[in-house]
């Protein structure tokens, strides 16, 4: 029982982190490209980037919370 719980918890965060990781990579790549093209717009780009990253990261955090709940609750 304990082994299956650990397995499920590990799989939850492992699978749940895939999509946010890919999208964070795309966000940052696009932001870097925009910065390279237009360095004056750094302020606006970095603000929007941080906000967008926070949204994306939140999805990974949901997976983390669920994984922690599976591991430690009950």
């Amino acid at each position, binding site marked *: 029982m304990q082994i299956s719980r650990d397995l499920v918890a590990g799989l939850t965060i492992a699978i749940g982190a895939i999509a946010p990781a890919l999208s964070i990579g795309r966000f940052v790549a696009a932001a870097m490209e925009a910065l390279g093209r237009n360095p004056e717009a750094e*302020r*606006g780009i970095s*603000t929007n980037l*941080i*906000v967008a990253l*926070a*949204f994306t*990261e*939140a999805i990974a*955090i*949901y997976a*983390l*919370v669920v994984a*922690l*709940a599976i591991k*430690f*609750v009950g």
Partner: protein
Amino acid sequence: MFRGKKGLIVLLLVVVLILANILTPFKVRQIVIHLAPETILYLGGFKVTNTLLASWLAIVILTLLAILTSRKLVDVPKALSLQNVVETVIEALYTFMQGIVGSKARVFFPVVGTFFLYILVSNWLGLFPGFGSVGFWEEQAGQRVFVPLLKSSTADLNTTIALATCAVISLQAYGIRFYGLVGYGSRFLAIGRFVQFFRASAHGEKPSLSLLFRGFLDLFIGLMELFEDLTKVLSFSFRLFGNVFGAEVLLVVIAFLVPYAISIPFMALEIFGGFIQAFIFAVLTTAFLGAVTGHHTSTETGRAESAPSAASEQATTPP
């Protein structure tokens, strides 16, 4: 920095602490991680948890800081005086907010600044020595369980949900303040196009069906806006809780895996992470506040525009 005698004393202290840690009889032998905070005492029927105690500590620290700073304010503070340091932090956040919402930063600053400072102090307090390590043993269901006296208050879902609820309620409050109850209510219950439709049909004109369709669409969008605000509570609270709690678990695991040395870079990482989380909470609150109080005018103008467009549609339909 640590040269000569000073360095020797520090080195001796570290060695003594490590030896004491190895030889101590009170050693914690296995990792115990609780998702929920532990209750440490009861005030009447009120449970005081260790995270609640830590949040009281954070409040006391912030209040003391505010009192000490504002006791005697001068126009030109000295280079390393308390006033200068606090002013630097406040000013940095204020100019950053101005970059997002412009002149409205002055109105939003009290709410957002409070969130930022409270979350920052709570996150950094959780990294202090003594948090999670000073406590007492308790008998629970026949087992000896270690109950820490203090635990970072943002590593508790109750605290973060309370903060997120405050943030979303402040969104509504500022929306009502900027547009009035009726004007802001049209964000969730947009019946402007319905009113137009029925007014047109009451005047005996041939009502356009696209207006009715767009009215239904407005209602649906209002419903979506409502759900969006409800999910904001979830995403705000889970993001903060997950990050801070995950950081604590990481630090504990690392401390048991490779003691003393490897913990230090992770500590530095978590100092940075604690700041980033407080910053993200503040920035997101600011961005949402700006969205709630800003783009709302577009629906107002959109309604004003839709009246002539409906009239032109009627003009084009053959009599």
